[in-house]
């Protein structure tokens, strides 16, 4: 309102102001008001670089909690972190024998993650998941679905996908377009919370 009053006063005092100037000023004031009424959401960026269950879990806990805080949350999955997003039935992936070998030894999938220590060939991970189930701790799989429902953006890293021979069809549905380090930096420059996990 103050802006409009100012425009009005200046036109009455300075007769040199044309109708076009006035229209421009009114449009600018309108834009400024529109910017003020739509508050920019705070941003949170998480880099999920590990496919270990004990890292993927806190990533998804923080992502969903950030969304509960009304933040605009993006999780960027890179290197072994991509495994979190692999479809359980992706099977052997890639064209190169090295990619194929990696996909055999590092299966991934939200439900198939292993512990970084005390894994004991998968027994440790199984015990941890059973324990979490008993204690009603939401699983990585559940948190991932919850995060998607809350509007958390899940970005697979394009370069790691190419390196490992993964295509978007090898990944769980509902992901955002694969992106690179530039997009991650661009977001982190504006984010109030950025974490590498």
């Amino acid at each position, binding site marked *: 309102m103050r802006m409009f009053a100012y425009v009005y006063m200046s036109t009455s005092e300075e007769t040199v102001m044309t109708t076009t100037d006035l229209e421009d000023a009114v449009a600018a004031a309108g834009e400024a008001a529109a910017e003020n009424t739509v508050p920019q959401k705070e941003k949170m960026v998480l880099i999920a670089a590990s496919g270990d269950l004990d890292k993927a879990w806190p990533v998804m*806990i*923080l992502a*969903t*909690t950030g*969304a*509960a*805080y*009304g933040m605009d949350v993006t999780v960027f999955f890179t290197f072994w972190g991509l495994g979190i997003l692999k479809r359980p039935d992706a099977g052997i992936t890639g064209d190169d024998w090295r990619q194929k070998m990696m996909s055999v030894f590092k299966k991934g999938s939200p439900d198939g993650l292993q512990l970084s220590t005390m894994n004991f060939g998968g027994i440790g991970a199984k015990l941890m998941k059973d324990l979490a189930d008993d*204690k*009603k*701790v*939401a699983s990585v799989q559940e948190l991932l679905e*919850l995060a998607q429902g*809350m509007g958390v953006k899940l970005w697979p890293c394009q370069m790691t996908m190419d390196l490992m021979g993964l295509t978007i069809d090898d990944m769980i549905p509902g992901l955002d377009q694969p992106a690179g380090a530039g997009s991650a930096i661009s977001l982190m420059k504006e984010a109030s919370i950025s974490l590498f996990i």
Partner: protein
Amino acid sequence: MADKVVDARGLQCPMPVIKVAQGINEITSGQTLEVIATDNGALSDIPAWSKDMGHSLKEQFSQEGEHHFIIEKS
């Protein structure tokens, strides 16, 4: 009596906070939300969330291992 009740009993971090955030979206400004949780982490998490989101925590008490929070939506 609160306008809406969220039962987060038995749920662990981060679920109580997420349930509260979902519950607050279903009431209007000035209405109240009661949250019942058994997670001891909620004792600090829910007041922190309410403060940061600008809602006021009207009442908080614990009885028989259950924590009650009454939040008024801003």
